[in-house]
């Protein structure tokens, strides 16, 4: 089937098999490999993209379902050599170690900040609860978001509960 998608502001029209996931379509159909596949079943969040304004696990969405949709991926963040504000703050706070979870983390944070310019640490943690980081960088990620939103004293200490 033929589908049309607007990804990072560009309109793409492509043939795709009806059983193709959005993740696979983005990576293999469009060649945008910034979005990662981790678990493939909605646990890890590495495949998170923004679909019509909402962060979703693209591994559990069919490309066929979202014909006509507007999508943002990590490739839409930097403009040329200039990183986005979220990326700059992640870099400043060393919120990246291996980097595999980062594209998904950035997308989840991006959705959070659309409606909430001053999130609390709890709200940040909730926004990224579906994004696993196995380098244990959550503290720095929360700090990066707090700093970015003008709350540099809002620390993101990892709580063991």
């Amino acid at each position, binding site marked *: 089937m033929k589908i049309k998608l607007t990804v990072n502001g560009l309109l793409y029209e492509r043939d795709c098999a009806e059983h193709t996931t959005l993740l696979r379509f983005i990576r293999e159909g469009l060649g945008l490999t910034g979005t990662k596949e981790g678990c493939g079943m909605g646990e890890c969040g590495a495949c998170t993209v923004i679909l019509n304004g909402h962060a979703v696990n693209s591994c559990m969405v069919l490309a*066929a379902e979202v014909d006509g949709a507007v999508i943002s991926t990590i490739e839409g963040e930097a403009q040329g050599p200039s990183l986005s504000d979220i990326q700059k703050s992640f870099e400043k706070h060393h919120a990246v170690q291996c980097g595999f979870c980062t594209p998904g983390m950035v997308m989840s944070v991006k959705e959070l900040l659309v409606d909430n310019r001053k999130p609390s640490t709890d709200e940040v943690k909730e926004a990224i*609860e579906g994004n696993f980081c196995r380098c244990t960088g959550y503290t720095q990620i929360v700090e990066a978001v707090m700093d970015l939103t003008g709350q540099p004293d809002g620390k993101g200490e990892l709580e063991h509960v």
Partner: protein
Amino acid sequence: MVYEFRYLAPRTASELAALLDGHKTDGKILAGGTDLIPNIRNGLMKPRVVIDIKKYEGADRISFGSDGLSMGPAVTINDVLRSKDARERYPVLCGCAHELASHQIRNRATVTGNVVNASPCSDMAPALLCLGASAVIRSATGERIVPFSQFFAGVKKTVLVPGEFLERIVVPAASAGAVGRYMKLKRIAGHDLGIVGVLMTRHEGRLRFAVSSAAPTPVLVDTVTEKDSPDEAARKVLAAVSPISDVRGTREYRVHMIGVYVRRLLAEVR
């Protein structure tokens, strides 16, 4: 996915009913996809045809009227949390919605899917049971309405038969204003399936409990009264469930924690 299937997206409810009628054995309904797609990927389900329930007019409608809050099959968990009607009139529904999975999954998973999937650990079922909600079930031959207290038939089983779909969930207007709290025991603070969950509601002098992950289906307990002591209340709730030991917890742990939660809820929900 390597496994291949056809994708169909009916544009009216009648067209959907006709398609389901024609694909009773080889068709599967796709709502949020957060269970179906991993199940297909893992080889647990092999539908030849996947029928998208989200694309017909009105499927994504959530509205409050004289008969209560109505939710179509494409209404997501976060649609509920964003609905002013749900937040103001049904805080218990929102409390359970908030406990379900992760933010990304709540953006995609549907309320109807969560109950049709009929997992014992459904987080929406406790709210729908305590609030006295009903399922409006449609097929090519007609419509029937089943209260959620009679909707679940076993582990991953409901009263739906092939050809039928859950067209709407209706939470009665009479339940608006019910207060309550859902306590869900998880291994981590973030998104996880429940080890056990207990919801208690208090509305117009009436107490209700619903328990998830403690029996083949989510369980409603409406026999506890204000006069019961906390121990008596816990005894009544425990008499209605039959938890098992599995990878997430032992039977003994579940039994103990249900008692703890019932006592805590009686003290906290005012």
